[in-house]
């Protein structure tokens, strides 16, 4: 008899001779189009899915537990590993939550830089989404094109913070660095070319017969279903709900910039694809406005709050008291006031929320990470039945799930 636990191949997953002709297909955990470790247990009638059980947890690192054993600043690099396609938005969400808990106001230049990082990350994430989804469907050219553009953005981020994937480019209370000299010029050059690039992708895909067959009327999410499943971001807006946290509950400088929130009422894969493309254009629009804001801001990058935030490096190196305070903040950590806070931000994937319960100590008492992809994976339970095997790939593609975020 085979033992299921040993490292030997065994075939518990596929049963061929059942009376009801139902086949259980194990999709994953290693599947190139699952974009991570997703296991789907699919009950099939011929090619059609009758029941779906997403099984997650293959990338579970216990970030919430880790957060309870770390000082606040120590946790920042861990947030990078959630949505590692757009890590600055995770950094930002956490920094914002702690800032709201403390009640800090961030200097304007830091806000401008954060806006640039957030929107650059959104572009990176959407390009990555387009590339991988198109590749899953079979459009190799789009994959290469989109990765080429993403590479420019990665280089740009590398110029700013030195990292390409896990940026940690935001600090609680501001940003660590000012922009390098070439940053604004390079970003502007990229943005000037972006509309052409997006047009290239759309020329390749919009009227492509294969793309349309895989996308149109596949994976239709109704408005009620999207709301009930806690969908957010593009998943929600493609189903006809006009809800963008940047617009409705503006944070940072989003209330000062002009941009539109693209909405569709179709709810299918194609609608989501169109929204991603439209969002890229809106991001570019925001970035142009933010680039103009940078000029004429005060040079301060970190908030002044000696109890929580270290002084600038110059002060630390020249003034005794700043050095002492820096030493205490590094070794013991800041102690936010007693209270709790839930701060949502619009990450490229949807509503990224941080719930922090502070008991006045240097470690958070409880930190809950509300990652959008978690529910966008859950919705597959209700979304997949009725679809066919090839649709699974395109639906997983357009849900835009990232497993660092699902499993945390």
């Amino acid at each position, binding site marked *: 008899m085979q033992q299921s636990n040993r490292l030997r191949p065994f075939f518990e997953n596929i049963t061929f001779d059942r009376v009801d002709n139902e086949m259980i297909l194990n999709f994953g955990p290693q599947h190139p189009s699952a974009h991570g470790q997703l296991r789907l247990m699919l009950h099939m009638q011929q090619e059609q899915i009758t029941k779906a059980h997403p099984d997650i947890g293959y990338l*579970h690192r216990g970030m919430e537990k880790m957060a309870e054993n770390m000082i606040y600043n120590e946790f920042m690099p861990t947030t990078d590993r959630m949505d590692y396609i757009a890590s600055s938005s995770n950094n930002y969400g956490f920094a914002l939550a702690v800032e709201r808990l403390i009640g800090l106001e961030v200097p304007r230049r830091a806000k401008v830089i954060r806006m640039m990082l957030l929107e650059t990350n959104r572009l990176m994430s959407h390009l990555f989404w387009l590339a991988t989804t198109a590749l899953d469907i079979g459009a190799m050219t789009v994959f290469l094109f989109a990765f080429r553009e993403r590479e420019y953005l990665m280089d740009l981020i590398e110029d700013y913070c030195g990292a390409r994937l896990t940026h940690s480019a935001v600090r609680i209370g501001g940003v660590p660095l000012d922009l390098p000299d070439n940053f604004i010029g390079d970003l502007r050059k990229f943005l000037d070319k972006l509309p052409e690039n997006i047009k290239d992708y759309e020329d390749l895909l919009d009227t492509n017969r294969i793309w349309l067959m895989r996308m149109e009327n596949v994976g239709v999410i109704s408005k009620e279903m999207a709301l009930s499943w806690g969908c957010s971001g593009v998943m929600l807006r493609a189903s006809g709900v006009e809800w963008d946290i940047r617009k409705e509950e503006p944070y940072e400088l989003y209330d000062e910039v002009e941009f539109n929130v693209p909405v569709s009422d179709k709810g299918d894969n194609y609608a989501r694809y169109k929204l991603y493309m439209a969002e890229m254009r809106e991001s570019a629009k925001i970035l142009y406005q933010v680039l103009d804001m940078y000029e004429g801001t005060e040079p301060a990058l970190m908030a002044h709050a000696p109890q929580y935030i270290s002084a600038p490096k110059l002060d630390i190196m020249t003034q005794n008291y700043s050095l002492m305070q820096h030493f205490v903040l590094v070794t013991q950590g800041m102690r936010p006031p007693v209270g709790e806070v839930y701060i949502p931000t619009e990450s490229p994937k949807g509503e990224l929320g941080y719930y922090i319960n502070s008991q*006045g100590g240097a470690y958070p008492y409880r930190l809950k990470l509300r990652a959008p992809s978690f529910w966008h994976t859950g919705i597959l339970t209700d979304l997949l039945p009725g679809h066919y095997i090839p649709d699974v790939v395109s639906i997983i593609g357009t849900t835009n799930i990232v497993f660092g975020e699902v499993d945390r």
Partner: protein
Amino acid sequence: MRAYTPKDNVQKKPYYTDRYWVAPQVAKHDVSSDEVFAHDLDAIKAKFEVLDAYIQVDQMVVIINAADNFAVIEMLKNEREYNQLSEMSAIDWLATEGKFEVFYQMLSMSKRKRLRIKCKIDEKESLQSVEKLFRSADWSEREMYDMFGVVVNNHPFMKRILMPDDWEGFPLRKTYPLQGDEFAAWYEVDKIFGKEAREIIGPENRDPARIDRYDTERFSRLGHEVPRGTDITNGEPDTPLVYQEPEGVFLIEKFDAEQSVVISDRHR
């Protein structure tokens, strides 16, 4: 005598505590300061017992009895336009009060307001599922069960979600150590190789920062080098430090100040 460590909370403790430190509080505002929230609270108060209610960081927090959780959320959804349950989970207060605190983070898109419903339950007590109202609670409640062991009644599929099905212990409880417990250390060994291989393989090292001073295979010993793999549990051999073989190395000459040239112009 070994220092006493409390068993009901094994989370990391700060090495420095100030016993005179009085932690500041995040301001709690009266609910009447916000018109929308005041109406919502009145609607809840009309039918249910509200233990406490306040506004903190622009969001209303309402503390109710755990038995009312389904009815309150149903009312908020159907009558007060709170159309999304964006998050729910628990907080472990077992060490201090012997209770779990469960919170439901809700969003009303039409009013642009977020509120948090909270209730407390005992360790062995179970809670009514709100999965019938919000499908998102399906996975949230499973995660809460997985991480805290809070059982939810009337849930369609009450099973662990992130941890393996046969896992023992609830990782987010304060009694659960960060590096995992005894069960965690043997889990993969038992699963993959079987219990009989325990003696050969040993427990899994779950502390990535662990240093073994007797391990000469994986740790370099700067200044105290010994040949790789030497057993040094019973003292170590005295190895003199030799950085170059006495008779010299092929192609490499020892530095001789007499024969060397000093370059003064670096652009030469």
